[in-house]
Each structure stands twice: as structure tokens, then as C-alpha cells.
């Protein structure tokens, strides 16, 4: 963003103010995440930087909170992590299947009542989570699914499908339907055409929708708070309880792991997005 040499002074000043504002906002966005890293290696029990840490004294740093996270007595994180992964994986699979099918239907130009149906399918994303939580809780309680893994998986499928529908519909908007007709004219049945032609082409959209569904389920706390019993505790529930009662550095160790996980997801989502754009012939 170098300025041309003929820029007047006042615009020059404006430009530097603008850069300063942007720097501040980027800092505001990203800096809070980096506070967690060093503090999770704190040797002490307090959530402030100790004198030793400020002087970079090696004794002030330790892995004790990571050890506590993994080996701690009566430690809830193992069970929570297991539950979170199981629930998120099944919810993602469910969301991908239902969402992709629906997106295929919605992208057909023969689809009746497209607007209304799209609005209904997206509604779980728009309705405040607390309301979804109450409604889903009423249903699960009646169906006898409260405090079961099945109930939570179903709830997360509800919350996750809108993302799959949106991403797959977007991928399909650039989809050339003549390739499926070509496959059909060569004697392929619809299922075969879908598996061999359509799916590989829309796969980036499907996977990125799946990532959204996975993250939604993995982070979701409001609905789970209504649904989960002691057996179905998840990482977000444990964090929520921990943050409400006592902010212990073990939580920061968990948070660090979660940030690493989200970095991983961010990188895969970015790579997928680029691949999808390349496949659809959008070059920037």
C-alpha cells in the first residue's frame, strides 16, 4: 500500500490513520487468542503472568496443566473429549448425507416452493440457539432421548445441516449439468452418475460444509446444556462449567489444544476453498 509520491499531506495523514485503525482491529481480533498459549504453561495456579514468566525464567514455565488435563484425578476431560468426538463425527455424517441430498434437490430448476423450503432448511442457523435449545429439549424429552448420545447427535444434525446445504448449493451453482446428462446418455444409472461424476465435482463443497457441521457440533454448548446428562458431558460443557466456577489453568491447556485444532480446520477449509474455486474455473 505504498502511496504515490504526489499524494497531498492531508491524504497522507488519513492513509496512516487508516493503516493504524486496521492494525488495531487485526490486533484486537487475533491477540486474545495468543494470551492463552503462554499462560497455559504457567507453573503457578494463577491466571496472570508471574514475575518469573515476565523475566523468562525457565522455572516459571511447566507442563503441569497439560499433565493435569491428561492424567488428573477424577479428570473429566478424557470422557468429554471422547464424547465430543463421537457426537461430532456422527452429527457430521448425518448432516452431510441429509444436507447434500437436500442441496441436490434445491439446485434442480424443477424444485417447487424453492424459497420457502430453503428458508425452512436454513432456519436452525437463524433462530437464536437458546430457542432451538428449548424446542429441541421439548422434543427429545417427549421422545425419551434426553441425556442420550442419540439425542445430542440428532440435535447437532439439526444445527449442522444448514451449513452443508449452503456450501453444497453454492458449489452446485457453478455445476455444469450437461456432464450428468452425458453420463446418462452413455448408459449410467442415476446412482452411478452421482457417485462417479457429481460427487467428485462437488466434494470440496461437501467437505467444507462437513467441516462447518463438525465445528458447530464440537463447539456447541447451548443446546447440549439442555440435553446432556452426566454421562454425555462434552468438552464445551466442561469448559462452560469450569469458566463459571473456577478459571483453572487446566482450561487454558484445553483451550490451547482447541486453538491448534481450529488452526488445522482453518488450513483444510482454506485448501478446500481454493481447490473448489480451481475446479469451478474461478481464477483470481
Amino acid at each position: 500500500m505504498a502511496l504515490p509520491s504526489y499524494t497531498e499531506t492531508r491524504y497522507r495523514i488519513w492513509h496512516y490513520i487508516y493503516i493504524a485503525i486496521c492494525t488495531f482491529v487485526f490486533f484486537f481480533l487475533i491477540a486474545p487468542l495468543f494470551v492463552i498459549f503462554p499462560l497455559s504453561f504457567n507453573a503457578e495456579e494463577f491466571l496472570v503472568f508471574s514475575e518469573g514468566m515476565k523475566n523468562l525464567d525457565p522455572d516459571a514455565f511447566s507442563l503441569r496443566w497439560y499433565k493435569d488435563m491428561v492424567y488428573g484425578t477424577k479428570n473429566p476431560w478424557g470422557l468429554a473429549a471422547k464424547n465430543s468426538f463421537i457426537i461430532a463425527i456422527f452429527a457430521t455424517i448425518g448432516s452431510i448425507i441429509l444436507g447434500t441430498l437436500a442441496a441436490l434437490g434445491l439446485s434442480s430448476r424443477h424444485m417447487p416452493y424453492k424459497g420457502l423450503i430453503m428458508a425452512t432448511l436454513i432456519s436452525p442457523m437463524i433462530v437464536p440457539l437458546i430457542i432451538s435449545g428449548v424446542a429441541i429439549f421439548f422434543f427429545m424429552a417427549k421422545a425419551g432421548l434426553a441425556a442420550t448420545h442419540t439425542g445430542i447427535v440428532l440435535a447437532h444434525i439439526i444445527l449442522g445441516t444448514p451449513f452443508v446445504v449452503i456450501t453444497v448449493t453454492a458449489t452446485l451453482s457453478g455445476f455444469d449439468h450437461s456432464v450428468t446428462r452425458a453420463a446418462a446418455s452413455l448408459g449410467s444409472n442415476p446412482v452411478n452418475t452421482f457417485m462417479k461424476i457429481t460427487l467428485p465435482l462437488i466434494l470440496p463443497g461437501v467437505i467444507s460444509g462437513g467441516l462447518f457441521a463438525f465445528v458447530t457440533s464440537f463447539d456447541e454448548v447451548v443446546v447440549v446444556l439442555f440435553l446432556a446428562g452426566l454421562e454425555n458431558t462434552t468438552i464445551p460443557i466442561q469448559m462452560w462449567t469450569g469458566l463459571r466456577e473456577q478459571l483453572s489453568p487446566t482450561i487454558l491447556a484445553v483451550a490451547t489444544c482447541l486453538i491448534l485444532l481450529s488452526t488445522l480446520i482453518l488450513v483444510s477449509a482454506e485448501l478446500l476453498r481454493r481447490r473448489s474455486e480451481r475446479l469451478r474455473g474461478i481464477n483470481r
Partner: protein
Amino acid sequence: MSSETKQILTTDGIPLEVSLKKAEKKNKIKAFLLVAPLLLFLVITYIFPIGDMFMRSVDDRMVTNMLPKTFKAMDKWENLDELPPEEVYRGFYEDYKLLAENQQHGKLGQRLNKEKNGFNTITKKLFRQIKRKKIDESASLKEQINKLHKRWRDVEYWQAIKRTAPPYTASKYLKGMDMYFAADGSIAQVDEDRRIHRILWLRTLEIAFFVTLFCFFMGYPIAHLLATLPMKYSNLLMICVLLPFWTSLLVRTASWMILLQQQGIVNDFFVMIGLVADDNRPEMMYNKVGTYVAMTQILLPFMVLPLYSVMKTISPSLMRAGKSLGGTPFVAFWKVYFPLTIPGIGAGCLLVFILAIGYYITPALVGGASGTLISNQIAFHMKTTLDWSFASAMGLMLLTGVLVIYWIYNKLVGVDNIKLG
């Protein structure tokens, strides 16, 4: 020429028009069948339960079912300013006796006590008389019940029973707006010092509005920078937006709790630059400040991403054209660039506002008493007071608001234009 000769036939002799219509219909059904599983799933597990919330919020059948004979007899109660006739007393006595046998009388007393204060005492008195078998069923029940307590001789108490007769009520909705049905059936306001819900509604709107405003003023410049910088720099900076976007909400809230605590880094910094004294560190968490700061950072990506996707499509030559036609950079920006970004502004602002208005987790953790929103109140009634019908009523009031905004959003931007990442 007759119309028959004009008609085009397919090879199997069916008119083309009919054949095409048939194929069209087949395609329609095919498309619908693909959507059907998800639609059915959502309708059963999600849309119906929201309807169920509505039923719960207006449901008032408890008393209706408890006092069937009373309400039947009340049809004969003509002059409502006078005490009801003997039949009503008899109906009430029989209903109440049955409830007492089934140990249900306490519930009725509590429910009626909500309708009119003092009911619990007099129903308990009646219960004791029935238990000791002191009531002579062959004599006039009106006289005997009236003798028990002076309130039974007060027509207002009988009117209160009559008011609970309809199986549905809007009273929970009125309660959500700090109003109630007065004794004569008109709508009255709660005393000024007890109007907690209205404060919460206003505060929710206020916080959602200001968070949207902050997000806009912070999001617009960086979206512009991201859209105008060369790709290799903007990709790197985009991570600053996307990493928080993908990071757990609880992790981000936790980091704000660390930063904003009294011994936290933000306060340390203020002390260091001499803004505040070390022994007088301001409380920045468990109040509105904490809610504003944390919610703005958490929702900012939802503002930046739609703005960015719109700004990316604006050609930089437009600004150059504006300037070359004699506009100063400010004029060119204001007259050319800004109007083109309005769709993005609309999308971002409405998205952030919708998300902010229903926020629950962050206000509950960093909001304290002065930073809690209507969602927290709904959760409170779901979990603590167990007044599920009231929670449902408030939830639906919030939902109505959100749907109105969603409708506007759909009109302005269209739901299918939502872009993610």
C-alpha cells in the same frame, strides 16, 4: 386448419405437450424427494417442537381440568357482582374433595393464589374441614363454606376462579412485557420497581445495536484493506479474521476473561501508561463493558466476511475513474465506493444483529448482572424456576423479533446469498 393437425405428437403417439408436462412433473417429484428426508426430519424434530413451545406458552388447562363441575355450574351464575349460587359451591366442594383425595389440592391452591393473593390460606382451611369430616353434605354448602373464612364471602375470589376457566391464556406473554390481567380482566402494568423484563428487552436491543455498530466501524476498514491489498498479503491477514471465526466460542470468551480481569493484561497496560492508579483498577468484566468487548470481537468475523465478499467484486478502476473526473478521494469514496458496498453492509449488519440479539454464552460468563440479556432470562426460567411455559413465551417473543429481521434480510439480500468463508 383444425387444431388437431397442428398438434405435435411424440413417437409413441402422445401429444408433445402432455409428454413434456409428465416429464416435468416427474422431475419435480424427483427434486422434492431429494429434499424430503431433511425437510421431514426438521419438521418433526424442530418445527413441530417450536409449535409445541407455543402450545405450552398459552396452555392453562390445569385448573380447567381440576374443577370441571365448578365451571359447569358457573354457567348458571348470572349476576357476577354477587356471590355465586349454591350449585357453584357444591360443584367446587365436590371437585375439591376429589382433589384432596388424590393429594392434588396443594397445586390448585398455589395456582389460584397466583391469580389472587390469599387463596392458599382459605383452600387449606377448607381442606382441613373436609379431612375432619366437619362439612355436612346434606345441608347448604354455600352457608358452610362462607362461614369458614371471610374471603369465601368475598365475590372477588369467586371471580378469580372464574377467570381461570378458559383453557388458554395470554398471561405469560403479558408477564414477559411486565403486564398482567387485573381483577376485572383488563391489562395492567406491573409496579415500576418490578419491571425487570422490559429492562432486559431494552438492554438486549441496546447491546445488539451497539455491538453491530462497533462491528461495522471496525469491520469496514479491514474488509476494505483485505479487498484492496495484493493477494499474498491479504491471504495472510485473512487468517487474523478466519482463525477467531473457527475457534471455539468458549475459548475466545475464556481469553477475554483473562484479559479483562482486575489483575489482567488490559488493566496492567492501563496502569503502565498511567491511565489508572494501580490500587484503583476498574472492573471491566461482569458488567456491560465486558459484554460489549467480548461480543464485538466474537462477532466481528461475521461482519468482515460478507463485506469482504462484496468489496472483492468492486473494480478498483471505479475509484480511479471517480478521482480522474475531479472528485477528491473522499468524494470518490463516498459517492462511488460506499454505495456499492451497501449490500455487504446490509448483510453483515443484519447477520451480526441477529446473532447478537440471541446471544447467551458470552453474556452469561462475562456479563455479570448488568450485562445479561433476554436469552439468559429464558435459560434461567428453563433451568432454575422450571417455569417452562414462561420460558417458551419469552422465547417465542424473541423469535418473532428475529424472524421479522430475517424476513427483511431475505428481502434485501436473499438467504441463498449467504456466503461462508
